[in-house]
Every structure is written in C-alpha cells, then in structure tokens.
C-alpha cells in the first residue's frame, strides 16, 4: 500500500479497536461503521451509534494463501478467513499462531494485534487485527 499514511491513519479506530456502529432503528451492527443502515436507509441517517466490538468470532470460510502479494510473501502459506463476529458483522482477516490443519470452518477465534503491512523498509508500518484460536 503506497497510498500515503493518511489513508491508513483514518482507519486506526477500526483496525486497532474494532470501532463499528449500530443502527438506532433496527439495532443491526456494522463493521466497518457505515454512514447509513442498508436495511433502514433514510430512517437510519443521523441515528447510527458508535460501538466497540469485542473482536471475537467464528470462522465462516477460509483459504490458505500460497501465492501472496509482495507485502505478504514472507508469510506464505498463510490462512485468510471470513470471520463472523459475535456482534454479527463478517470480516476478512488472517489467522495466525495456528497450525494450518487446525484452521476449520466453525473455529472460534479472537483478535490479536499485529503488523499488517509496511511501506517497504523505510516507510510507515501499518498495524491492525489478525485472529488466533480463542483461549479456552
């Protein structure tokens, strides 16, 4: 991602702390936060409330990336999953600290704070969420 630091900086509340929002009309939770609720549309405008999500959920589907983008080449093979968060929204994230054969649909996971990308060895470092197996 060579687009400049502002683009990353803007998303820090989401990437570090799972700040999403909730429609005041239908109570649906969104992550990342949305300007309006796609179900309630105009009724939701000005009625979206910020909430912090717990960063816990379950694997809905996954893949193991063997051919990765340049920034991720050192990590291949690495699992990527769609995770359904406890509050409802689904997100895409990497699974770490987990043997590949233990990544399964239904696996309970929790977030961990990691480096996601960096602008080479001289540029900014972008941190955010990845997921690991939930601690029993």
């Amino acid at each position: 991602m060579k687009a400049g630091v502002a683009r990353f900086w803007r998303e820090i509340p989401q990437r570090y702390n799972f700040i999403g929002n909730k429609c005041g009309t239908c109570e649906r939770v969104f992550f990342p936060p949305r300007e309006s609720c796609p179900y309630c549309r105009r009724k939701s405008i000005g009625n979206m409330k910020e909430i912090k999500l717990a960063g816990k959920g379950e694997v809905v589907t996954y893949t193991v990336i063997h051919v990765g983008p340049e920034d991720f080449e050192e990590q291949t093979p690495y699992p990527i999953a769609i995770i359904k968060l406890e509050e409802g929204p689904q997100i895409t994230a990497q699974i770490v600290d987990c043997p590949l054969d233990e990544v399964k649909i239904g696996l309970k996971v929790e977030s961990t704070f990691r480096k996601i990308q960096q602008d080479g060895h001289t540029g900014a470092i972008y941190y955010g969420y990845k997921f690991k197996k939930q601690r029993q």
Partner: protein
Amino acid sequence: MPLVGFTMEQIGIVSYGAHIPRYRIKAEVIAAVWGKDGQAISRGLGIFEKSVPSVDQDTATISVEAIRAALKRCTLNPTDIGAIYVGSESHPYAVKPTGTIVGEAIGATPDLMVADYEFACKAGTAAIQTCFGLVKAGMIDYGVAIGADTSQAAPGDALEYSASAGGAAFIIGRTNVIATINHTLSYTTDTPDFWRRAEMKYPSHGGRFTGEPAYFKHITNCATNLMTKAGTKPQDYTYAIFHQPNGKFPVNVAKKLGFTIDQVKQGLMVPYIGNTYSGASMIGLASVLDVAKPGDRIFMTSYGSGAGSDGFDMTVTNNITRLSRQKAPTIAQLVADKEYVDYGTYAKMTNLLFWE
C-alpha cells in the same frame, strides 16, 4: 495482611500482563549452523531455546498484547491511564513513538503522557520508576510501564543463542494495588559494555567486559544499596528477580548476594525463552506475580548496558486474590505454547535475509 513497619504510601502494581511470541528455536539448532557444539553452548549459557517473533510481530505488537492482557485481569477503564512509557532497544521506528501505538490500541488516548525509553535491557524498569514517581506526585492516577523487545543478534554472534522476543506490561497506581513498591533506586555509571550505533542493525559488545565490570558490579551495588535503604536482607524475600542475559549470570549474582536458587527460579525464564532484553526482568516479575500470595516480598534488580541497574523492593497485598489472574495467560502458559522453527525459517522471520 498488615504490612508491618511501612509508612510509605501504598503505590505499586495494579495489574500486569505479558506476551511471548510462540515460535522457538533451540540453541543446538543455531549451533549446528555454525559448526558449534550445541549442548556445550546450552550448558555454558544456561539457555535451551529462545522465542522468535513472527514477521508480523515487533515491539509495538508485543507491547499491545502485554498491556491488553493486564487490562483483561482488572477492571480499570483505559481512559483513566495517564501515562504510557515503553522501554525497548528495538522500537519499530527510530523516530516515531511506540507508546502512541500502544495508547491508541488500548483506547487510552488522547489525554495521555507518552514517551519511549531506551536504556538497553532496563528501559522497562526505568518506566516503572517514572510511573511510580508520577503517581506519587499526584500527576496521574495510573501509569503503564512496558518493557518489550524483538532483540536482534548478528548471525554467528554469541548473542544469537540468547537474543529473543517478548515483553511485559505493568499498570502502576495507588488503588487496588496488588504489590506495593516499597523502595526503588538505581545505580548508574558510564560503562560501554554493549551498544548499537544509530545506523546499525545489530548490537556490538565488549565480550567478557560485559560481565564483571558491567553486569555484576551494577547489580551487586544496586541490590546492596536497596537492601540497605529498605533495611532488609536476602532472607526477607520470597522471590528475587535479576536481569537475565543468560541462565548463568542471574544465578551467580544471586548467590553472591546471598539469595538461594529457590528464591530465584520462579522469576528465571531465560532458559526457556532466551533474553527478551527490556522484557527480561519484567517477564520474570510477571512470572512471580502469577503465583504470588499476599505477604510475599519480592526483590528485583534489572540491568541495562551502558550501564545501570534499577532495584525494587515490593510486597504482595491481599488485593492479588481479587485480581482475575486467570483472564490472561500466565508466563508458564506462554512458555508452554510453542512451535519450533528451523534456522531457515528463523532467518526469514527475523529478517536476517534482508539485503537491500
């Protein structure tokens, strides 16, 4: 439990947490690469294996995981934290603080004092002293002191068997204190035993000069001064923690000071995870707090090359029984959760292969 003979304010540790990357490499695997006798080296250093950070871990991520663990164990609201000091010699940026990343990641910003510390392996304990002072001065209610490193060693250097990754975080305050800090002091001189110049990737060191005039002199003097100030002797302590660059130095210095191996072993993690530099003494302290009971007295002396030692005399309070210690992994659990890597993977993970 009443703390007889104490008149100082009850300022101390409110909660604690740690993080150790789960990858390990055995000393003998490293030795084999360089044609050395691994078992002899392991015996000599008192290190069997060391932790290895994955490519997506650095001092910032380890610090965040450690302080998040500390926050899980207590009920503190992150916005009540008034200061964060992160001690490390491997801050991800040369210029740009690690502490702001940590502050943002735990929701403690923006009414927050932050600075990064560097004092070789004792930057984290220096951060504890700073937080202690700020709380005592009434400037903050709670301060966070973190010691964390993803320490680097040049391939083939003696340090390669020990330099590892990990960190611990301590919340310092005056409410719900689980271990009071009764006394703290430092012993500091200008002693260039180990250093890393600004543009260099790996540290340099004075070989055997790092021992007697550096590590042993500073720890011994600091520890002696502390016991004099506190009016204590080694037998008064349940646990003693010394900086642990290898498995031998802390045991030798403990014996020299009159401590027994039983007092030292709970806080001696280096044989299993290597030297986590700024995290080393602090992970030792976290390991002690994992098992400590009310009334236990803890002695800790860190050491940072350059050089200096920070000494702490602490007493565990009844509050430790109310801390939800089980809500975050203990040091023993972090040590046990591991996956071994070979030297090639280690080289990739620790960026030894970067040539641009």
